[in-house]
């Protein structure tokens, strides 16, 4: 294989169809993609602002990676299932996660961010790499159910070094599971460059397991959509797992606690800003007349409304009842938890009494 990336949309906004990954592109599709990127970006900006004002404990910015994520989200069928990291804000949005639910986790009132059954996305785990195995197990379940579904498993370049991601590829190929691994190589794992994780392109890992892989321009929403859809279809058809490396860049800090100036030359930013996924989509839509003024105004208004709703919901949020922390440790009653809850309840009562 070569390390060339597949690109359907040039930075100048020209559409160049790829023979292997044809895509029907109409104004409606372009508008939906545009809208989802804009709203994802707004969620990102609002969340960072809420963290800065102390309303959230932490936030993981997504700036720069929305194209890869929104494209992949549109490639999934509602019946498909996804596993992600904390950073797939674009995918959360496309799957219908309410940003307010998402922020419960960063507010510190809950470990969970949404109802996995409803949105068809597993709750993300913060332990890097481990969910890749959950993806494969879920896909093995789909196989056993004989269902016409597939799993999209998203992780970062740093995660590829973990033993769990390796074991996930071993199990996926050994059992021919309907799963597509979607790696966003955003060049950094906190302060560690991707060169510390691998000397070869990450896409080359797949061949060692007997699985096809494709390297895409991760700032090209159309390439992400076309390639991910093709490989999910292939997985659903029983042709087994596949691997995608989306080459992109994390333009923000790793999290709101991070200080990228300590480890990277901000001049990298200019290079990647020029490749911004939203700008290139906008250019294409302008060229093709798919971007009328009214639509832009609508989407901006929708984004503003989203921002207001998120701000108000989070700012007003009360701390939970202390005893709530004892709920759901087990599905069936556990005497130790019951006893500890009772003791805490009595202790709190005594405190109020005195």
């Amino acid at each position, binding site marked *: 294989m070569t390390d060339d990336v597949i690109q359907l949309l040039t930075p100048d906004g020209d559409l160049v169809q790829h023979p292997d990954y044809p895509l029907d592109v109409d104004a409606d599709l372009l508008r939906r993609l545009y809208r989802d990127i804009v709203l994802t970006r707004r969620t990102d900006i609002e969340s960072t602002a809420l963290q800065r004002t102390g309303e959230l404990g932490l936030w993981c910015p997504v700036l720069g990676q929305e194209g890869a994520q929104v494209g992949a989200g549109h490639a999934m069928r509602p019946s498909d299932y996804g596993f992600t990291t904390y950073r797939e804000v674009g995918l959360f949005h496309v799957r219908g996660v309410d940003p307010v639910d998402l922020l419960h986790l960063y507010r510190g009132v*809950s*470990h*969970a961010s949404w*109802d*996995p*059954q409803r949105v068809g996305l*597993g*709750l993300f*785990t913060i*332990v890097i790499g*481990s969910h*890749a*195995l*959950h*993806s*494969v*197990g*879920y*896909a*093995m*379940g*789909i*196989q*056993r*159910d004989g269902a016409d579904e597939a799993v999209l498993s998203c992780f970062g370049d740093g995660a590829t070094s973990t*033993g*769990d991601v390796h*074991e*996930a590829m*071993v*199990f996926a190929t*050994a*059992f021919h599971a309907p799963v597509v691994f979607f790696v966003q190589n955003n060049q950094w794992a906190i302060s560690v460059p991707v060169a510390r994780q691998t000397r070869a392109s990450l896409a080359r890992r797949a061949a060692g397991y007997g699985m096809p892989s494709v390297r895409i321009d991760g700032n090209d929403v159309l390439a992400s959509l076309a390639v991910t859809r093709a490989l999910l279809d292939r997985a659903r058809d029983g042709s087994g797992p596949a691997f995608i490396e989306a080459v992109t860049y994390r333009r923000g800090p790793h999290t709101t606690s991070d200080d990228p100036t300590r480890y990277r030359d901000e001049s990298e930013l200019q290079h990647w800003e020029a490749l911004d996924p939203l700008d290139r989509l906008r250019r294409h839509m302008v060229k093709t007349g798919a971007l009328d003024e009214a639509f832009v105004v609508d989407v901006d208004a929708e984004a503003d409304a989203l921002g207001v709703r998120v701000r108000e919901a989070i700012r007003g949020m009360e701390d939970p009842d202390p005893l709530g922390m004892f*709920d*759901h*440790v*087990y*599905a*069936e009653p*556990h*005497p*130790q*938890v019951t006893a500890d809850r009772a003791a805490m309840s009595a202790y709190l009562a005594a405190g109020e009494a005195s």
Partner: protein
Amino acid sequence: MTSMTMVQALNAGLRRAMDNDPKVLLMGEDIGPLGGVFRVTDGLQKDFGEDRVIDAPLAESGIVGTAVGLAMRGYRPVLEIQFDGFVYPAFDQIVTMVAKHHYRSGGITTMPIVIRIPYGGGIGAVEHHSESPEAYFAHTPGLRVLTPADAAEAYVTIQQAIASDDPVIYLEPKRRYWDRAEVDDVSPISGSPWTSRVLRTGADVTLVAYGPMVRTCLEAADAASEDGVECSVIDLRSLSPLDLGPVVDDVRSTGRCIVVHEAPVVLGVGAEVAATVTEQCFFRLEAPVARVGGAYIPYPPNRYEQHYLPDVDRVLDAIDQVTAP
């Protein structure tokens, strides 16, 4: 009633669980055509097929991690870890995912996973094949921990573990795998496995054990009885939850308690038993709760194990100490 070894009882229990629920599947290394290195899954792949009895690649984290995904999809995976010493590569998936996911999901997603682990020493094995890791799991909220003491227990509790909607670490005392017992394999399964069992009552000393040490304590109680010391013997059976009620009740009458296990004494299950029993029987205790268990060393080469492992004589020695005037 059928006479079975513990291996046969586990095999029969797994078979019955798979017959009753098509969502139950087994995964592990060498559990297919080989039937597991201890033959616990003998014949099951032949009868239930490769989709329900899965020979896994050599990767414990992979086995447990994919089971988490299968559970999310509605399956009830029953995993075999080949030996105690090989569970550690899966430790991250067990403590960060299996134990916490139901809590993390706010009760939406259950983790009905059973992780079977042959554990403990006494079979003359090489390194990593004789360890007792139970304290790691019992100290981890979100997990349940069960360990059967005999074949009859194994037959019933493996099915109850599989039926539980919570994850269960199921520790099989490998040195008792070949002990026989009469197993009731016809009656419907009843009762709760999350309680301790009073196997014998005596006025003088309360012996507390679980898994492989239950038989040792019963033998010690017989020997002590010949010397005129009468012991109660209580099998904890469940290490999470720990059901110490029956122990406390018994110690309130005997005033003396000895807890026995193979694992190192330091921070072993015996420490929790001693601390809790002391809290609840403080004014009834005639002597401090005694702990008989492993020294603070790694499991030694097997030519040492007869000295490393608690045996009847070590229990009798402890009985002498707690009953000394």
